[in-house]
């Protein structure tokens, strides 16, 4: 599937998800392997209310390839949040 289409499907109905995906689209997305992209496409087909708890970590993702993607998404967001807030640390539970 074209990268542009996948990128567009990261536009979500919940602001929470838009915000978490934004830094990932800027820094990790272009390096994903074909297998990772395929896994992402399937993950993006979830409903937002199911996806958000998984991305946030309150509900474990049922697939290990999704867990690995979520770790990357969260790492990108964590870096951005730290830059914005200018504080080290900042608890997260990716």
């Amino acid at each position, binding site marked *: 599937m074209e990268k542009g*289409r996948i990128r567009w499907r990261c536009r979500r*109905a919940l602001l929470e998800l838009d915000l978490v995906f934004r830094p990932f689209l800027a820094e990790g997305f272009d390096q994903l392997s074909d297998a990772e992209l395929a896994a992402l496409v399937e993950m993006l087909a979830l409903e937002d209310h199911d996806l958000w708890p998984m991305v946030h970590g309150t509900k474990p993702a049922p697939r290990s390839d999704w867990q690995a993607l979520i770790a990357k998404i969260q790492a990108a967001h964590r870096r951005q949040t730290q830059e914005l*807030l200018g504080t080290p640390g900042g608890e997260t539970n990716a």
Partner: protein
Amino acid sequence: MNVETYTFDAVIVGAGGAGLRAALQLAEAGLRTAVLTKVFPTRSHTVAAQGGVAASLGNSTPDHWHWHMYDTVKGSDWLGDQDAIEFMCRKANEVVIELEHYGMPFDRTDEGKIYQRPFGGHSMNYGEAPVMRSCAAADRTGHAMLHALYQRNVRARTQFFVEWMALDLIRDQDGDVLGVTAMEMETGKVAIFHAKATIFATGGAGRIYYSSTNAFINTGDGLGMAARAGIPLEDMEFWQFHPTGVAGAGVLITEGVRGEGGILRNCNGERFMERYAPNLKDLASRDVVSRAMVTEINEGRGCGPNKDYVLLDITHLPPETILKRLPGIREIAIQFAGVDPINEPIPVVPTVHYQMGGIPTNYKGQVVVPKGDDLEVPVVGFYAAGECACASVHGANRLGTNSLLDLLVFGKASGETVIEDIQSGNLRLKPLPKDAADLSLARINRLNTATSGETVADVLLDMQRTMQKHAGVFRFAHLLKEGVARILQVEERVKHTFINDKSMVWNTARIEALELENMIEVAKATMISAEARKESRGAHVRDDCPDTPEFPNGRNDKEWLKHTLWYREGNRLTYKPVHLKPLHPDTQPIALAKRTY
């Protein structure tokens, strides 16, 4: 260039609650109906709505549609049109029960009726006591609503064009609307959707502000398209702010947190709401709390390195309470503020939430514009519903849960009106003008051929910062004036944006550039309308129009009890009267009064 044309009875732009409800009406009547949407229907922003949908069913407490009408008129600070408000409140039970029949999983009472909850601003017996009027499906009301409507549309054979972006409205020499141009994202191809009727249901434009609770999809495309086609935008100065959005991110922290005992503090640790609202304190109404927060920040008592937010403190609550009652909020604070609210307070700022203004319509969903002496002449073939439309039921301030109701009532009404207009022979397929797609093709061509310019992201950010600073929750004459000049400068920069990626297929940079061209129209309309309105009313509060005996709450009914209409051409403003008369002659109007709670 040869542009492909698709022909339908009706084309609907938008597949949120309003678009899907309108589509259903048409498709079930056997009309050939197309729905265009930028994202998959159940990814529309309606999914984010949790609080519920208002209807005076009276299942949990006594209720009456006229009480609901009173609350809505008062909430609107008397700027809402009373005929449209009566229509909406009377129709509420019908559309909610219909939705139940479509399979919406509403919460139930023990007897199996729809369970109803209380919600801010909704009352019993004309303000006497809180009423239980909000119908919800757990905390997924919007999501459940979209699913029920989408399934039903699939059954009715509505034809969906998913991941298509409408670009421009097509009007002929008579000013009649004949459809839209749209771009298929997958190919980059532009096509014409030619129809007897066009319904806009494109949602709000909350992303024009820097701090917004709205998802990125809310770029006001319908308003931009209407404005470019010469349709005025109504009451765009009125934006509802939610007091507690996470600073920097915008994600909403519900009122429930203050309900559980959350306290707002300034940089001195002071519980400043005690000074502004000695009785209700942190639980005062949204606008009072928002303005108090902004006053603290403006007077130098904000927190953080830039002193630009205040703190929402729940560290005094037992951790068990936070974990049990507010788990979602804790997640949001950890994710977006980097703080665990069990140990540290959450940085918050008033955040834009809902657009009261929009494309002017009457209660039937017809788009209406001034023509000669008649200030409300329907534009043939053009209808609008939902957050992009201004019926006007929310006036200067919307009540929570009235928006989902607006989607259902006016989505359905616009569909019904289209059916009537087609059956009565008022609407037919008029021939397309030769230049139908020229404007859209020229816009795309500019982006394809520009070899230099500013990035979309840079101009977008400046637009958002300008809106936030100059047309925020609390408005100042000099800032508004300066804001008009600034936003016109931003407009010039929007004309010269540049994208690196010139590919046809799935070019998200191009989509974002086209969205910015829509957002700037909404931004100009907002700033210019706000600068001109020299009173305080509802969500539009000016520092130079304070509460006085002559002008209670700063509201000036003598000069400003009227709707604003902003035209793109020349940034011209005109005004039209508010409908103070209800729909039915025997309905008691809601007399003007000071808005106090």
